[in-house]
């Protein structure tokens, strides 16, 4: 996978993850073009797009569009399911996720994405394992952080 974009029906970018090195200018140009192209498509149309030399796979969930760019030999349908699995993960983590959850906690959405896809490839496809990893990180940090900072502040370390 080359990149993944999340944007709203109004064309506002909500999440972007680039797995290929591109300049900021290119990223902006691609985002702008893609948002336009995808938003212009009608609901019954094909979820796949040929765009430049890439394949775009997109799917709409409520007011959010999830959009992935893959290479020609990649499997379009499984990419569609990657999007779906990601939505499932978000849903499980936030508890029936909505766009606002992703807007206000976008860093969490990134953390989940990073546990699920790494370097553009599916890293862990077991839903349980992904969430376990996220929860552990969330928990462990809060445990580790409070006592340590208290000690530091008092200067006893």
């Amino acid at each position, binding site marked *: 996978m080359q990149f993944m974009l999340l944007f709203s029906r109004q064309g*506002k*970018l*909500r*999440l*972007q*993850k*680039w*797995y290929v*090195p*591109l*300049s*900021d200018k290119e990223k*902006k140009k691609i985002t702008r073009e893609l948002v336009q192209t995808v938003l212009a498509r009608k609901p*019954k*149309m*094909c*979820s*796949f797009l*040929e*765009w*430049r*030399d890439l394949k775009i796979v997109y799917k709409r969930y409520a007011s959010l569009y999830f959009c992935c760019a893959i290479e020609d030999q990649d*499997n*379009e*349908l*499984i990419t*569609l*399911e990657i999007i779906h699995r990601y939505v499932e993960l978000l849903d499980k983590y936030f508890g029936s996720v909505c766009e606002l959850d992703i*807007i*206000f906690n*976008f*860093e969490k959405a*990134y*953390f989940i994405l*990073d546990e699920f896809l*790494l*370097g553009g*490839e*599916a*890293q*862990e*496809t*077991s839903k*349980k*394992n992904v969430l376990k*990893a996220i929860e*552990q*990180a969330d928990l*462990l*940090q*809060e445990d*580790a*952080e*409070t006592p340590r*900072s*208290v000690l530091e*502040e*008092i*200067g*006893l370390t």
Partner: protein
Amino acid sequence: MSDVVEKTLTALPSLLSLDSQPGSAKLSSTSKLGNLIRGITELTSKHEEEKLIQRELASIKEQVSSPNTSMRQMKELMVRAIYCEMLGYEASFSYIHAIKLAQQGTALEKRVGYLAVSLFLNESHELLLLLVNTVLKDLQSTNLIEVCMALTVVSQMFPKDMIPAILPLVEEKLNHQKEIIRRKAVLALYKFYLIAPNQVQHIHNKFRKALCDKDPGVMTASLHIYLQMIQENPEGYKDLTASFVTILKQVVGGKLPMDFNYHSVPAPWLQIQLLRILSVLGKNDQSTSEIMYDVLDESLRRAEMNHNITYAILYECVKCIYTIHPKSDLLEKAAKCIGNFVLSPKINLKYLGLKALTYVVQQDPKLALQHQMTIIECLDHPDLIIKRETLELLFRITNAQNVTVIVEKMLDFLRVSTDDYTTIDLVGKVAELAEKYAPDNEWFIETMNTVFSVGGDMMQPDIPNSFLKLLSEGFDSVEEDRKLRLFAVDSYVSLLQGEPGKLPQRFLQVISWVLGEYSHLRAELQPSTVMRLLSKLLDTKNTSSETKTWVLMTMTKLCEGAAGVSVAQEVSEAYSSSLDTVLRQRAQELQHLSQDSELRARVVPRDAGLEPLEVDSSLSFLDGFVSEALAAGAAPYKPPHQRQEELAQAKALSLEPYGLSLPISISSCSIADRQSPTLLSMSSGLSGDSTDLSHKGGSTTLKLDGVKRVWGKEGYLAQREPVEETAQVEVPSPFRSPSQQAEADSSHSQTPTPVPTPEPTQEKQQLASSLFVGLSSQSSVCLMGKSESAPQRFRRKAKSPSSSSGASEQISNSLVSAPSTVDNLLCDNLLDTNITSELAVSSPTQTSQLSQSLTTANGTCDVELTDTKGSNHSLIRDLSVAVAADPSPHEDPDKPKDFSSHLPAELSGFSHSEITPLCSNQSLDLSACHVQQKDSLVLVVFIYNSSDSDIQQILLELDSDDLEVSGVCGSPVQEVGSQSVAVCQYSLSVKRPSVHVEVGGVVSYQLPVGTPQSAQFSYKLPLTSFIRPLTLSTEEYGTMWLAFSHDTKQNLTLINEGQESLAATLNVLKKKLQLHIVEIIGLEGIVACRLLQDQPCLMHCRVHAGTLAVWLRSPVPDLPDCLMYYCQRALQEH
């Protein structure tokens, strides 16, 4: 005691505030970000948003740079900065703070820091270097989460040059007890493999361990690496096929934990990955394919549920089945699957069905026939994507009979398409089809007109180029050529009379060139009329100066008669003071030549110039000028690298002796090569210029350090530009000489096939019949890419056979001129033999056998060939895929154990590699070894006849992608007596370096009784066998070093033997790889070697921080990388 109390007391306020902090901080962080977000949503205009964000960014900037900001606040600031960047506002000031946060924060803060880094920077960003230490520290942390975070960031981006610094730590993590760490480590190594494959070459065996990991997640992760490696070298991993098949069987059979199920399908991602790997492994390999038939069948059977995920698996299965060696019942099932896809009401599946059809239609054109009505419907689908894919499918089934309809459909699409990328792609395809299958001249020219108008200035430049080439080289009938050119001229004149201002520049250039060359064919057309039409173009505002140059060139060709000369004078006056130098030059030429008709006839001969132009590449005509200049005290010319070297020497304190390098590609001779004597009069001034400039460059070397370099560089630029222009506008000149009479090759005389032009009607049935015409008759469309089923109308003449590429060209010719309905096996074989025999021509030994082998192939079916029928073509074209039929021959007591006694006497003095068996069957055993001589590498093949009767008509043919093969001995082996050995020798040299090079071959022979037999084999040898020492002086080394363009750098382990570690290391390399040590100076050493024949590779190494920093350079691509690999191995093995 009081100390502690005091400390506690002073800390109390902050402690109190801290107490409230966890809650309040969270609240404030959400509220601060929340405020921002809410603020933005309340805004109405883009302008207001910009103002708000700029304010926000300013406040973030102020806070991050304040020393009082705690890491906790920093984390919150980073989140806001990320948000601003996502909205498209730059926050580059925060990048460095993101790195700091990752470095200094506690786990929670670190996590945000790493996230910010991965979102802000990409892997080529220089700030990333600052992250290396943090990553190093976290990789060694005892906190699992920190290790995870470090591995996550490493798998997303890491500076390529710093990989060696963390590689050992990542490697170590492969043995970690936690599967999540192992999995992330595997993915990090995958990333390393992608960006720097050389660096992880030594840990390939660890990948195998990951593949065998007990955790399915780790195993799945390792498949990414394997897919990549197998795609690069399928031969190297054939042994893993059975393992992959077993894994897939277990997955399909539901042996994985339930966690991995996705909508009750077991591990679909894993299944798809495995299917992709299998299809690469099974491609063109029957025996490997056979291993996977069962599991593919099972996968098809199991994937029956009606859900997207099963379709994804089915689609991958179908792709795999059509890629590997075919099996009929699987193909049938796959075809049924494709049918279901195509017919599905779900649009996504329909799309994939079309895509799959496109993929398989060359192998199975009948499948397209079955679905013709659906395809017709898709052609009118409201979704452009579906339409586009349908056109792609039609493109693949185009033949001479349906070309007009299909091209019409494509042009229709082009007219409505707004996407540049699609336009460029489709225009190229239309041009390709038009060139291949055009039914007549009118259609061809008109189609190309549309291509040029629609494609405009976006299309690939090779389309107009090849069109012009086609026109100028002509075909086989002089009369046809004339008609085509005449039609083009007529068509263009009428276009120019219309509204030429609307035509794209490229098209105008084509038009002006064609008119310049061929308008004289239309006798009633006055040159002056054409010139007037063209001069209208010059006056049009939109015409680019490049086009104007073309127009002026055309005028130079046309300015005849009083009327023409007067137009020429008018135009040349107008442009002789143009600011554009090229235009000015053309105008000058036009002016001079229009006045001197004799000179013009010589410079731009019309229709004459049958002889190829001779180019004086040494520029000897300038000798007089040069010697005059030298006599007048000018400094002699120095090539750029020499100047560069002197420059480096002048800087006595330079610590980087080889650091400076100019792009040396434009050397003096490459410029000279482009000059042609026809332009002598015009270009002499130019070349004079260049000498002048080089004088300046040379004579001032001693002083004025700064100024001189600018001069040198500018001199280059100034010189390069006009020369390139000359070369460019000169392009037509070779075309002007219509190519020589075709060789007496009867198969080339093509007559246009009479084609019934079907009338496109609204009736779909009729459309279908016109689209799919000609598909059913071709029952056997071969696997070798796009098949040439019908005689091609516009085929270029073959080049003269004396050229070095003659052999390969002839092969392609014999391929295309094959009978159109390759229906039976016999013809198939004949075709193959044709090709192979032509291949054999290159090794002169075999020619006498040609007729014999033809008759044998004709006479009866060859057993071996029948078996591998499906992949025949590719085997012949790319012999390297031919796997040795049986690399370990069965033990035969009668077999002579030692062939070395049969080594030719002249080779016995040299060391030879171990004699390895190539292939064997009941009557013939082939073995081979290679012998390294000083200036060559000889491959010796031993043919041992183990049967009781004499074997005749032995024909041994070798071919290789990587190697040049030529026969050494004069007399080819034809017969081998019973129980005796014959020896063949071949001299090998490297065409394209790779770590291992391989030569493939076929041996065919005839037993006294029975049918002709053949067997395939391949022989692999390391690149090091072609490496020889290169003796040169340090000065020569310096000169060469600067001139080479391909390089690679890496740190290698130093062999530690006290003081002399550098010398010891280099000696090991010298001994193992046959390198020549030029000189060792202190902590640096320079080494040289060459790849046979005479392709140098230089090594510069320096001892630095306990490792050996090696830098390799060569003019040959890939050679430095391969050699680095061997250096690394040699030192590891030591």
